[in-house]
């Protein structure tokens, strides 16, 4: 097998790997800005320079020339090579900064050039703390600058589009953003304009950077030149916790991080998963952060004298149990493609225990919304999970007919909004007692609810979602809810301060805690109030049970799903 020597150590390789990617794959640090594994290699930041030598061969015989000691003679390239654009060949000898002073010096000089017109406004820059330029200037850069003249002033806070703001002064012209629009999203909305010290990425006149994937350039940008219009100046990186999870805006289940400070989700960024979303996240997924913070309920409530009155959880469970008992087998349960597999399973169990029927789930399909990439026609995350549980999309006409005929004596809605979905008319529900698990006070079914139970959102619960390709993915809580819950706290994402600060520093606080509960806690409590036993220790045990009981979920326990998900057997 061909091999190369990097910093004195021999590595074997197959095929024709690029040197920089090979180094990154083997844990050898090579500083770089413009290189991105999914895009073309322009080699324009000049930061990943290495010294490369190749063994000398006799031109006539093709044999390796050897020194007196029998070692192959190595002839070095006359100049340093950009490792991103260098393809490995057998016998090559490579020196990174660790073994070559020349490389270190070159990288230092490159950084001095990059920083000449960089504003050095790190104290107010959104990227500070996770900025490759900042980190590499610290690790590889010069101690100071020799540039004594006025720095170039370029346009600042330019709104390229509705969601992306440009600070051209910070730009180092790596062209990652323009390559993203040219090669990945193919919207061709950005280009580098002007030349030399005046250049920066820009939309051409009359064009707005409004493609549905525009915010990916914010993550791609190795400096703080492209920032989010929403997240700009909202928080420092180290104040937030980032919890690996998935987005639930559509049926793709793109992997993401939820960034949380003071129990508010401040932004959502992509998490690399080659099997689902690679490195990308559509804007609609990122903008969903608001619904975790805004219009959240303050606690459970029951309808008294025609109005919803806030009450205790126990009282709400009791009222729900009364309704279920009164309705008996006339209860219709509406499952939800927004809720986890575990919660839907518990709902089905509760229906089984009380003798009610499960009508199915609302599929929330919007034909034409999907783009064959990371957006799907289905606007809910768990349609496939419901299907695999044996649920069907609800037969709207039949449900409405049943309600009108008075056959539905109670309606139990799990984390959904049939009124807003125009499935059921508010007036039709006037005579039917409704128990509702809901996320936001904007839920239109709330107007008909007799028992309103605030449910934990994807950012606050543990559970499983199955994306439309049949990949089961486990979510974990990113933010705390009111009331300590051991199962949730064990898996909560931590911030840097949580991990490294002392307990006395009070980095985090108790503000913005929502008084809600995960449905896997509410449903057994309702069952218990109604005199039924629905005993599971937690979502992990529920999923273990489902994985054993249903072949469509074979093997899909939380451990098997891990951070990257678990491909379910074909159902």
């Amino acid at each position: 097998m061909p091999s190369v020597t990097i910093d004195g150590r021999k590595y074997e390789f197959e095929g024709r790997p690029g040197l920089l990617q090979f180094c990154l794959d083997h844990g050898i640090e090579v500083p770089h800005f413009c290189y991105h594994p999914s895009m073309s290699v322009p080699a324009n930041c000049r930061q990943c320079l290495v010294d490369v030598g190749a063994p000398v061969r006799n031109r006539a015989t093709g044999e390796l020339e050897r020194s007196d000691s029998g070692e192959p003679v190595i002839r070095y390239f006359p100049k340093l090579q950009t490792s991103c654009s260098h393809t490995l060949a057998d016998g090559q000898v490579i020196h990174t900064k660790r073994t070559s002073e020349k490389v270190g010096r070159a990288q230092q000089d490159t950084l001095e050039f990059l920083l000449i017109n960089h504003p050095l406004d790190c104290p107010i820059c959104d990227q500070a703390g996770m900025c490759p330029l900042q980190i590499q200037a610290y690790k590889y850069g010069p101690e100071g600058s020799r540039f004594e003249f006025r720095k170039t002033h370029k346009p600042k806070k330019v709104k390229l589009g509705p969601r992306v703001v440009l600070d051209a002064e910070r730009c180092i012209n790596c062209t990652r953003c323009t390559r993203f629009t040219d090669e990945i999203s193919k919207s061709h909305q950005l280009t580098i304009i002007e030349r030399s010290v005046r250049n920066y990425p820009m939309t051409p006149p009359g064009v707005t950077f409004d493609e549905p994937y525009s915010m990916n350039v914010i993550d791609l940008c190795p400096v703080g030149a492209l920032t989010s219009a929403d997240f700009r100046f909202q928080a420092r990186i180290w104040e937030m916790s980032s919890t690996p999870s998935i987005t639930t805006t559509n049926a793709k289940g793109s992997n993401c991080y939820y960034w949380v400070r003071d129990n508010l989700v401040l932004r959502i960024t992509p998490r690399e998963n080659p099997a689902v979303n690679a490195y990308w996240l559509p804007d609609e997924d990122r903008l969903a952060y608001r619904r975790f913070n805004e219009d959240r309920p303050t606690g459970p409530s029951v309808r008294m004298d025609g109005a919803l009155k806030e009450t205790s959880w126990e009282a709400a469970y009791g009222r729900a149990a009364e309704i279920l008992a009164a309705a008996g087998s006339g209860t219709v349960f509406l499952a939800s493609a927004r809720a986890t597999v575990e919660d839907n399973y518990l709902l089905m169990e509760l229906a089984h225990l009380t003798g009610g029927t499960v009508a199915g789930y609302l599929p929330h399909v919007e034909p034409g919304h999907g783009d064959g990439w990371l957006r799907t026609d289905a606007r809910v995350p768990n349609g496939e999970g419901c299907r695999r549980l044996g649920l069907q999309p609800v037969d709207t006409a039949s449900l409405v007919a049943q309600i009108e005929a008075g056959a539905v004596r109670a309606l139990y809605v799990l984390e959904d909004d049939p009124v807003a979905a125009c499935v059921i008319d508010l007036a039709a529900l006037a005579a039917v007692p409704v128990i509702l698990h809901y996320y936001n006070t904007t839920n239109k079914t709330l107007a008909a609810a007799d028992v309103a139970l605030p449910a934990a959102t994807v950012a606050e619960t543990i559970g499983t979602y199955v994306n439309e390709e049949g990949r089961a993915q486990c979510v974990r809580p990113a933010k705390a809810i009111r009331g300590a819950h051991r199962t949730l706290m064990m898996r909560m994402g931590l911030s840097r301060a949580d991990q490294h600060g002392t307990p006395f520093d009070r980095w985090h606080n108790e503000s913005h805690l929502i008084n809600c509960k995960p449905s896997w806690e509410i449903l057994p409590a309702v069952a218990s109030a109604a005199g039924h036993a629905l005993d599971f220790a937690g979502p992990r045990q529920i999923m273990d049970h489902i994985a054993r009981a249903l072949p469509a979920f074979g093997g899909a326990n939380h451990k098997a799903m891990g951070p990257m998900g678990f491909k379910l057997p074909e159902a």
Partner: protein
Amino acid sequence: MTDFIKNPVVALPERNPAPHFSEQELVFSAEEKARIARWVSQYPTPDGAVMWVLWLAQEKFGFLPPEVLRLVATELDIPYAQVYGVATFYTQYFKEKKGTYVLDVCTCFSCQLTGGCDILHYLEEKLAIHAGETTADGCFTLQEVECLGACGSAPMLQVSNGPFVYCLTKKKVDALIAALRAGRMPGFTSVTLPQDEDEMGGNRRTDVESTIEYAALPIAVRTR
């Protein structure tokens, strides 16, 4: 460039400028389309021909406002943003309306040493405009440019991205301005190379209107 060092501010181009040309004007003729097709056929991908087509468009429309860049992009079936990037990269593509004649006066090293700045200032006074501006009658735009590669016959200027005028003196400038006002463009002039005089006959070109023999004149003769 000197102004930029003193005041290094890069302005944001107008994001939504009003169009200069109507839809009816924004078309290439059949003959132009044939030329474009020929250029495109010379390259593996159509974007290779973008500079040719931009040049053609500039000759046709006088300058390259966004709607003309869009026309070029549509004609070549390449992204508009790419055309815009290319057009802004090269200073010879005019993004704003210029005078009928654009005078690019070189003030780079060789020309500066032999009086290029004096020529520029003389032109500024004569035309009553500053470098970078256009005369009120729209006849001349005066620009200060970097090296145009004719150091041997400095100081020099270029007229409208076209012919060079060498070995400038105030008299020569006066004559040039008078000729241009009368609508007479200077012809393309070849300057012989002294080192090739013996072997290659000065490397004279046969396809130009006039040839001048290289002669390094004392600086004083040229500018004062």
